[in-house]
């Protein structure tokens, strides 16, 4: 379940520029409705791509989110 939640959010960050903008402005607020564990949420908020990858986040999504990817 958590793997799904993490990846749905990563996919949305890649594909939805408006959501990406809200996430950049205030990550915690943008994720308020997401069903994440505390650990997953903190990894998103501090944008710890390696930790998100360890938590099941897709490598290809993590490296391809405009402005947040790169490797």
């Amino acid at each position, binding site marked *: 379940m958590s793997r*799904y939640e993490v*990846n*749905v959010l990563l*996919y949305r960050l*890649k594909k939805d*520029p408006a959501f990406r903008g809200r996430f950049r402005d205030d990550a915690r607020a943008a994720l308020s409705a997401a069903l994440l564990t505390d650990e997953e949420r903190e990894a998103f908020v501090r944008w710890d*791509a*390696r930790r998100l*990858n360890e938590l099941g986040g*897709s*490598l*290809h*999504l*993590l*490296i*391809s989110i*405009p*402005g947040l*990817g*790169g*490797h």
Partner: protein
Amino acid sequence: MGKVVYAAAMSHVLYPDYYEKNVGPHGRAMVEELIAVVRDMGRDLLAARPDALVVIADDHLNVFSFDAIPALCVRIGRSVERMVQDDAIEFDRALDGLPQRYPLHEDLANRILEEGMEAGFDFTASWSAPLDHAFLSPVSTLCGAQPAPPLVPFWVNCFVSPQPTARRCYAAGRHIARVVGEGPWRVAVIATGGLSHFPELSLARVGTSDVAFDRRLVDLMESGDHETLCALTTKELDLTGSHEFLNWMVLMGVVGPVSARVRFFGEMGRIDLAALEWETA
């Protein structure tokens, strides 16, 4: 009676800027060398006058989402679009400036799908999936300024576990060969991706390849030892970063156990680049 008139497989990020950025000048130089080889291969492909070009490749979570990931998917319909991604990373900037729409070979795609279902392959059908670099970077390099033959895009789930097995991918290729053999068309087939990179899909391991494993794969392809290749496990493909070799397994199923000819093999460190061709009867 139809026949496979050209068969090859090749790495699919044919974009020098990507390797310049991530590897440096020697990465750029190596992929430029590969691009020149693939252009040569394209001359052979087009000289074979194919009625259709089957392209076996994978999705990078560009097209399919975690809502549903097809194991094996046939693109049907009349035409297919190039994926458009705002602010795309380098992989997909390779598509900038390419035609927006490509014709499909609807009859061949439908036969692969429908006869596949009859034969026990539960293929997914897509009417709308666009094509990312895995398809269009090789196709555009092969065809150059010439129009691409009508395409039959065929996706393999290489990256989201659980993936189909190497043996199942090979069997899907045997099925495609049967459909081609029973039809009226001259068909070219390519598989794309690889060789090893992104082991375990781990961000911490990005930048490393498994040269020894890749040399072994190339040896097995050169000797036509498809049984050993079919026995490759999902786990070893993952550990070595050889996820996209599943596309190549479908291609080898299409051509059957014949020897491959190596047109290019380059060890870059981040990835091993390769291009191989198979004799077609």
